[in-house]
């Protein structure tokens, strides 16, 4: 059966079940857009900037667990995706990125809108392809989805020159197998490694589990709960691990790291056995490496062999899919109780504040996060941007369902919140709440048009303090209050939203904010809330950059 490259690509996507594509057209992908109508099962969502397409595909993947797909034209279209691809790469998000390129005979000649996107994305994709024949499209797409969604997940880019979309080739169905001799991730843990880890856990007096994004990625929440309960091990999550372990569980002890809870950081630092589960011992989570809990034995469950021993030597690594590893570990563990250890952590928790809200009529970050939690009964999917509001959303919501907290952790991409919420909304019917910074919102707010067109019921709550808050906090604490370029003049967000045809409300105090949240919750369709917050507020506690977890501070006076 003869098909042209564009048709083969669409056939392949349909066969892959990738029926939702976030994209933006341009010259070289016109042969592809010409064929979209032939495949009504594939829904194309037109974004307003390619970065939005990448973040939307990312948000969709994070909310659904499926592989997100985005599409852009050559040159500037492709380079606009780069921030989104890198965001997905840092957080191991399964994503397939399709780009067009100039015709084959123009490649390497600096043709109009030519960019070496496979070269550019080499270090920020799990793998990428430049497909030079129509007959190679289907195998490349098959491999791309396979690589993106297995092992340690990540973005894969497929670059297709314009004339390859037009070239005809025989297409006899989508391949059902891949042949990759250099790629075969280990998912089943070995008995020796499992037994060694179990032996250490069974001997442990003060064990702690650090659960990361891998718990969510492999769907291991139930297994983790079972293991924690059996061995009575307190569970702390990393930022991206939030919602991987229900925060209303008795063994849930919040999240750790630079702005993690004080008692969490202390517990991680006082444990005698630290078990990392699907996490990578990142510097923001662990503090200064060489002073992180020197006496602890480290167990590390991960699917990526390169993560084992990267930052810390591991006493007992367990290589494999986290869910399978937890399942394998469970029967080896002795059921026990640890009243002393749990009491130790509870005492630290009782002696230090867990709520840094300042009372008053003015809206503070912690208060607003708790108000949103109350309004949504802690059930909403929360998408955040990056900065102070991201940390407050992590500290004050209390997540109980997997994939409930969606945030750019590794790359820390401001502006993620607007398009990622858009993508997440396509994965579910219940309204998505997007907790936005006033800075980040300005970076990607053109996607309000996309949101309005599709009548997506997203609730955008802008924590508007008129500052680039986290940067201001650092200038205050570490750069002698020398504020520079952090006071953000902002447009009238209500008028801006209304210009896009989106309902918007403003609140300047707590009473108004409560009313606005209630109205947003009941609203049919998208809504933007411009909530004026205290201008200068700091996120506490904090591990200053370069400090150890044991040096967590709770106020500026401690510096």
């Amino acid at each position, binding site marked *: 059966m003869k098909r042209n490259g564009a048709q083969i690509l669409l056939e392949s996507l349909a066969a892959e079940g990738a029926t939702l594509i976030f994209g933006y057209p341009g010259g070289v992908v016109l042969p592809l857009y010409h064929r979209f109508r032939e495949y009504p099962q594939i829904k194309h969502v037109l974004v307003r900037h390619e970065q939005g397409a990448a973040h939307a595909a990312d948000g969709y993947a994070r909310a659904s667990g499926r592989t997100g797909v985005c599409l852009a034209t050559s040159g500037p279209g492709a380079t606009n995706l780069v921030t989104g691809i890198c965001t997905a790469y840092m957080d191991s998000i399964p994503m397939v990125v399709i780009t067009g390129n100039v015709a084959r005979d123009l490649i390497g000649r600096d043709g109009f809108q030519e960019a070496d996107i*496979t*070269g550019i994305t*080499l*270090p920020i994709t*799990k*793998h990428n392809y*430049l497909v030079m024949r129509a007959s190679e499209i289907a195998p490349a797409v098959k491999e791309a989805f396979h*690589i993106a969604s297995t092992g340690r997940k990540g973005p894969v880019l497929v670059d297709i020159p314009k004339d390859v979309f037009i070239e005809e080739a025989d297409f006899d169905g989508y391949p059902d197998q891949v042949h*990759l*001799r*250099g*790629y*075969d991730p*280990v998912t089943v843990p*070995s008995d*020796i*490694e499992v037994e*060694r880890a179990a032996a250490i856990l069974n001997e442990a007096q003060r064990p702690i589990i650090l659960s990361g994004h891998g718990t969510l990625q492999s769907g291991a929440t139930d297994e983790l709960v079972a293991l924690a309960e059996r061995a009575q091990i307190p569970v702390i999550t990393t930022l991206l691990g939030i919602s991987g372990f229900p925060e209303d569980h008795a063994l849930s002890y919040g999240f750790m790291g630079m702005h993690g809870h004080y008692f969490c950081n202390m517990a991680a630092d006082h444990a005698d056995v630290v078990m990392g589960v699907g996490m990578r011992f990142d*510097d923001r989570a662990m*503090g*200064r*490496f*060489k002073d992180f809990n*020197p006496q602890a034995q480290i167990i590390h469950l991960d699917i*990526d*062999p*390169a993560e*084992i*021993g*990267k*930052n*810390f*030597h*591991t*006493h007992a*690594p367990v*290589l494999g899919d986290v869910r399978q590893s937890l399942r394998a570990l469970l029967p080896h563990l002795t059921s026990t109780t640890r009243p002393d250890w749990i009491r130790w952590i509870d005492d630290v928790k009782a002696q230090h504040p867990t709520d840094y809200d300042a009372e008053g009529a003015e809206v503070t970050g912690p208060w607003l996060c708790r108000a949103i939690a109350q309004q949504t009964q802690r059930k909403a999917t929360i998408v955040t941007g990056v900065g102070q509001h991201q940390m407050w959303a992590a500290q004050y919501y209390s997540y109980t369902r997997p994939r409930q907290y969606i945030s750019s952790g590794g790359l820390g991409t401001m502006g993620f919140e607007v398009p990622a919420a858009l993508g997440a909304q396509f994965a579910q019917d219940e309204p998505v709440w997007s907790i936005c910074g006033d800075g980040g919102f300005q970076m990607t707010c053109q996607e309000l048009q996309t949101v309005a067109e599709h009548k997506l019921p997203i609730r955008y709550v802008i924590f508007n303090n008129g500052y680039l808050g986290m940067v201001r906090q650092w200038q205050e604490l570490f750069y002698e209050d020398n504020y520079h370029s952090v006071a953000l003049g902002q447009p009238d967000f209500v008028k801006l939203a209304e210009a896009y045809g989106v309902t918007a409300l403003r609140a300047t105090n707590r009473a108004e904010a409560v009313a606005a949240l209630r109205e947003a919750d009941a609203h049919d369709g998208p809504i933007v809330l411009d909530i004026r917050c205290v201008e200068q507020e700091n996120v506490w506690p904090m591990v200053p*950059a*370069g400090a150890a977890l044991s040096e967590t501070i709770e106020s500026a006076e401690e510096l």
Partner: protein
Amino acid sequence: MIATNSQNAHSPQRVVVAHVEDRPGVLARVASLFRRRGFNIESLTVGHSDEPGLSRMTIVVDGQGTQVQQVERQLFKLVDVVSAIDISERPLVARELALIKVSCTPQGRRDIIALADVFRATVVDVADASVIVQVLGDEDKVDALLRLLHPYGLLELVRTGRVAMVRGSGTSKPVPVSEIERRAEEERAQFGRRPDGALPFASD
């Protein structure tokens, strides 16, 4: 001439053999990985292997500034890399070829030829005012000959970089992934607290 275990233990240089898909762009992927992770390449040679469609890379890295284990594992993560094995701890045959062009008058030729003979090197080109000496051996041998030829006037030098092969019937060729994992597991079983060498982040 012969690199042995004990020699390797003192040498900061490590030899990693990688078998990679013979496809456009694979060298760029490997180079990009080394640049991105800050691994220092001392030498890198690529050529065909005995398996169709696979190229063999011999990569020499500075084992003091770089965690070799990370080199191995990050390389292996690349989809186009079929295997990556650090063979430094095993008995090796390691060789390098160099062509050395030395300025030389007809009168001086005899000296240079005699010198080359001592190193079992050969003179492969003779001109009015120069000769090209070809030498094969490990780096120390090439370095020694270079030092001795220097006074004559070194005009040009090319070295291939090291190629290496494990002694005996064992190979560093690709093995099933399960085998690679078994070996990696043995390695991971070596208990310890901190990675050797420099930590990769400035926060330390």
